[in-house]
């Protein structure tokens, strides 16, 4: 039994924590830019989505392999006083929906907690095995 093998669950749990922390970063970007009408090239902010990918084909961790924009339609808001409004008085707003983001935030934080719980439980498991040495 290689000692490095013992750390498998540690690496997997930590990769999950890292991936979900990244997901949380993406969500915070979405929430912060929920009303950003100009994200660079004069276009409103587009909601970003983190894509998860397994590390390897067998048992292994997870990574956020890409962060892609959500290409759903941008909502129009009637606001004639806005300097960004077009000729008909509509402003194109970002396609961020705060309730959706809050749900995703809950999922991400619960997933992070779950990975941390696995790490802690695994450490306790190894300690229990070492108790048998005494």
């Amino acid at each position, binding site marked *: 039994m290689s000692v490095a093998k013992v750390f*498998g669950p*540690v690496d997997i749990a*930590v990769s999950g924590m890292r991936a979900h922390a990244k997901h949380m970063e993406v969500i915070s970007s979405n929430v912060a830019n929920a009303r950003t009408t100009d994200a660079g090239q004069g276009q409103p902010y587009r909601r970003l989505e983190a894509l998860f990918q397994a590390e390897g084909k067998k048992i292994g961790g997870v990574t956020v392999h890409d962060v892609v924009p959500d290409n759903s339609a941008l909502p129009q808001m009637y606001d004639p006083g806005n300097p960004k409004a077009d000729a008909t008085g509509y402003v194109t707003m970002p396609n961020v929906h705060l309730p959706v983001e809050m749900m995703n935030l809950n999922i991400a934080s619960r997933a992070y907690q779950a990975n941390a719980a696995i*790490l802690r439980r695994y*450490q306790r*498991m*190894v300690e229990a095995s*070492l108790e048998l040495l*005494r």
Partner: protein
Amino acid sequence: MIEFDPNISSLPLTTKVGAPQVFKPPVGNPEFSQVAKAVGNYVTKVDDLQQASDASVQDLLTGKTNDITAVISAAAKADMSFKLLVGVRNKIIEAYKQTMNMPL
């Protein structure tokens, strides 16, 4: 870590239940010096892990990285390997004491 095969049918069928077991020493019986050498190698491994853990904490505190999960991983590995080393050390010392206290 714990490799447990719940599949009873995969057990070798040659051992009959209740039959007296003949003790066969494993092939290439390890000498104690080899065990001591293995422990010595493991100590260097544990030291490497401890140093990696220290380095990652330092990197986090000096702002070289902001990846807290790397610190968690390194600290968990260092902690677990050190606990295993302490367990093995205690066992060896206990065995030494028992040997020394043997009435001759």
